[in-house]
């Protein structure tokens, strides 16, 4: 099963939508609140080269924004 990480802030609507979408589709993910967790924020900026949220990492693929098509393709849906 693919390893899914979501870097988000609590207020960001697309972050909530993304997390809800993973939950609805029964896909496990690990969430990092980058507004509080500085280590995670640095990691996100390093991996995605930017600080807009959400950033979704599926295995080694970095997806900036809640891009359903890219997510589905990466998960083979």
């Amino acid at each position, binding site marked *: 099963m693919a390893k899914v990480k979501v870097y988000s*802030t609590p207020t960001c*609507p*697309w972050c909530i939508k993304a997390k809800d*979408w993973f939950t609805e589709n029964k896909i496990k993910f690990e969430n990092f609140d980058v507004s509080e967790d500085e280590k995670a924020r640095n990691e996100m900026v390093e991996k995605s080269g930017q*600080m*807009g949220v959400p950033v979704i990492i599926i295995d080694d693929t970095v997806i900036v924004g809640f891009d359903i*098509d890219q997510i589905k393709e990466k998960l083979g849906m």
Partner: protein
Amino acid sequence: MYDIAIIGSGVSGLGAALYSGRFELKTVVIGDKPGGTIILTNDIANYPGFNNITGFELSEKLKKHVKDYNVDFKDGKVTKVEKQKNGFVLTAGKEVIKTKSVIFATGTEWRKLNVPGEKEFSGRGVHYCALCDGAFYKEKVVAVVGGSDSAAKEALLLTEYAKKVYIIYRGDKIRPEPINEQRVEDSKKIEVINNTNIIEIKGDKTVKSVTFDKAYKGSKEFNVDGIFVDIGHIPLSGLAKDLGVKLNDKGEIIIDRECNTIMKGVFAAGDVCNTRFKQAITGVAEGVTAAYSAYHYLKEI
């Protein structure tokens, strides 16, 4: 074969879906932005019946309401709509959807500044959503570009994080709704710079400054940590155009009072249309009207 395929899952699409479901038409809603752009609006106080609600909640409530009826939802971006003998075929990733009628509720995307540095610093100081990325600017200096009600609301939201918020506007005077204009005036953190355009965005890892087209306090260089662009929207009407639907010179889908386009079996609703007033309530109403027109069209064919 569906009776109605609604492209776009924002509030206009959901309004259409609710009525289409109630008419017991076989309905599918397909979109890659569930909830639509309204979810980025933190504070809605002009949707009748709700004194105060977030865009996120409003779209969730609408979706929940739609789910009382038999409506299919699919995720993904529709990349092609083709006319065939007995209707239309939509392609979205692996999905191929056949339908007798189509409602375009595809909405808009943010208009870009189109200046050097904007793309390079996108997400690294250049942002389009205060609610999403504002939290990164605690005690920083930010600028909102734009003079609309939406720009004023972005600036007001950013005062919760930033120590100083500038509004940079190309015109003489910003033009929010009176209630938000007053809030901007009352805010000690907000300062409006009128008659000024940003012509370049500069920085290293993140944005450090912008260049104005005219001097402000003696200098065209202006230090800022983050820029939030809110200069309007561009209609997402490419699919409709390729299908042969008529657009106006702004690229908006031309509809009549009953949300008909020039093409039989094709209807449109919401921000993508050539209606002047683009509000959640008007978009929802157009969605409802489009569904009603489609219902009549389906009875006739």
